[in-house]
């Protein structure tokens, strides 16, 4: 089942604008309960899609629509409307800063223990380093308001885990690009991948990719465990920097150009590692927890 989903996801995400195909296939609300208007399925299913979106750098608010807004509305008992959604936490009128895809989606706002679905009265467009919309929004009135049991801290964890999943997809892409390039690019009469110095860079990169990936997969299975999510995002954000740096080192100067596709991946790595908390922010959260470090690690606190 998940292999078929993964194959489908990669087919769709490789298109220039995957959103219509995602909607047609009912894949924008995977992981959101059917009774709330979602497509059902597990968070692991949703992660398969999100990882593929990260791999392709797909320009879609997939994390925002299902993983974040859809689940938030479901938790509040509100029906999930069709179309792209995003989420924000803040004062109910706004202004809300750097809302992902704010110009292109209806916004589910979490404020003072309740959620509302809002259309912005005023949008100031902005972007992250990768050019993905991160807009400032101001609102007039709420369309639907309901009390919501999800706290701002929980919503931040949801966001961190979503970005961590996207990071693992992008890191795998960066590794594949670097390995392929090392096999093609010739210097001194042979592919640069024949040089041990380059091989060791790629091996180091592969280590970061595999460890980040398995940790994020584990956290997706225990999304309510604060230690798991904090560790997964901290590690993915840390790995993203290493992976991007090695990817560029292997590619040489061509990798930093607009014409070469590597930047589609590395600009996202550098953006997503910051969003919903970087490795330092999540390390600080872990460090502030009371208890013996071993009990925290093994979930036996």
């Amino acid at each position, binding site marked *: 089942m998940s292999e078929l989903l993964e194959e489908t996801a990669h087919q769709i995400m490789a298109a220039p604008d995957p959103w219509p195909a995602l909607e047609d296939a009912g894949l924008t609300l995977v992981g959101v309960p059917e009774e709330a208007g979602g497509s059902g399925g597990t968070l692991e299913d949703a992660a398969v899609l999100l990882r593929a979106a990260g791999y392709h750098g797909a320009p879609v608010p997939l994390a925002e629509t299902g993983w974040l807004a859809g689940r938030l509305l479901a938790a509040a008992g509100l029906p999930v409307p069709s179309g792209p959604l995003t989420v924000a936490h803040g004062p109910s009128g706004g202004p809300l800063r750097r809302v992902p895809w704010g110009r292109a989606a209806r916004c589910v706002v979490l404020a003072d223990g309740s959620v509302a679905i809002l259309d912005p009265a005023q949008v100031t467009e902005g972007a992250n380093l990768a050019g993905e919309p991160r807009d400032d929004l101001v609102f007039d009135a709420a369309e639907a308001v309901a009390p919501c049991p999800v706290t701002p801290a929980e919503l931040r964890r949801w966001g961190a885990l979503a970005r961590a999943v996207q990071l693992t997809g992008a890191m795998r892409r960066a590794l594949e690009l670097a390995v392929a390039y090392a*096999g093609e690019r010739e210097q001194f009469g042979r592919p640069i991948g024949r040089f041990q110095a380059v091989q060791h860079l790629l091996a180091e990169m592969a280590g970061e990719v595999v460890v980040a*990936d398995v940790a994020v997969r584990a956290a997706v299975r225990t999304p309510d465990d604060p230690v798991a999510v904090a560790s997964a995002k901290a*590690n993915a954000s840390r790995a993203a920097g290493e992976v991007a740096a090695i990817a560029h080192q292997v590619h040489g100067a061509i990798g930093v150009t607009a014409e070469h596709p590597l930047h589609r991946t590395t600009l996202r790595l550098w953006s997503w590692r910051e969003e919903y908390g970087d490795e330092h922010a999540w390390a600080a959260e*872990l*460090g502030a927890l009371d208890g013996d470090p071993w009990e925290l690690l093994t979930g036996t606190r």
Partner: protein
Amino acid sequence: MATLPDLDPGTLPPETAALRARVRGFLADEPFTPRCDCWLTGADPAFSRRLGEQGWLGMTLPARYGGHGRSPLERFVVIEELLAAGAPVGAHWISDRQVGPSILANGTEEQRQEFLPAIARGECFFAIGMSEPDSGSDLASVRTRAERVPGGWRLHGTKVWTSGAHLAHAILVLARSASAGDDRHAGLSQFIVPLPAEGVTVRPILAMTGGHHFNEVVFDGAFVPDAMVLGQIGDGWRQVTAELAYERSGPERLLSTFLLIRLLAERADEAGARNAVGGLLARLWALRQASLGVAGALAQGRTPDLPAALVKDLGTRFEREVVETVRRHTAVEPDPGSADPLARALAEAVAQTPGFTLRGGTNEILRGIVARGLGVR
């Protein structure tokens, strides 16, 4: 292009929670002094026997050989608890980790009956004779020779860096039983030599701070009867490399300096130090998931050599990162004679750190394995 296989997370079965609690209860009543790198430097045969009494040695061996028929994931829980506590597990570490499983996989019925129950009781410690003065990373170049004689073999050669040979009841020796020919991995065999033995001399190789963990083991015509050949003559390379995923990905590749994290956390009274502890925990949490993932794959009968190599590369570099992080956030000097546990643990860790990225295959060799897996080598 070859790609990396995904590593699925390893999930600990719920029944391991009670096992973990039992191990913690046992450790709380044991009077040892915790130390860094306890699986190399913390040998205490009496402690090993007490673990055997609890059923925590030879856990994955079948009951008919004195083992306990437990899963690799149950063993994972026990050994990670022992390592995190800095317990003196060095005496039995190699016999429990790899010699027991290897005798089970490759040994004769007589060998299994003779050695496995004793390994599980903590009464039979093994050393493994692999490296030689001229054979380190290039293991297939070993020159210790097995000479065919009536009824068995005679061993000639020298093994070095043989951990725990001075405490061991037997040594498992990799030797060349036939010339290499075209295939340099051919003609290698494994031999079991109970210790002490005529024609075998064990001499200490002292570590830089004076500790005795390593030995030189000289074989001067020591006789090995046919009954003590492990597995098939000429099959030694395959037998040795089959164990590597077990040897390389265990929690001992992440936790050699865990004691320092605990001690740093206890005195982390300002934000910088607390954040640093949090950063180490995040990394260790991720590495532990990877180690668990490899253990889970092994439990399903797969041989994830490539992820195992990756875990060891990243895990051992993390062990070193712990040392540097503690240095950055405390003003404690490493002092092996100090009354301060942190100063003592730091001394143990600093002096042992170079070994972390050497033993079990240097990290450079491991990266070569990964590069081959990626298709660039």
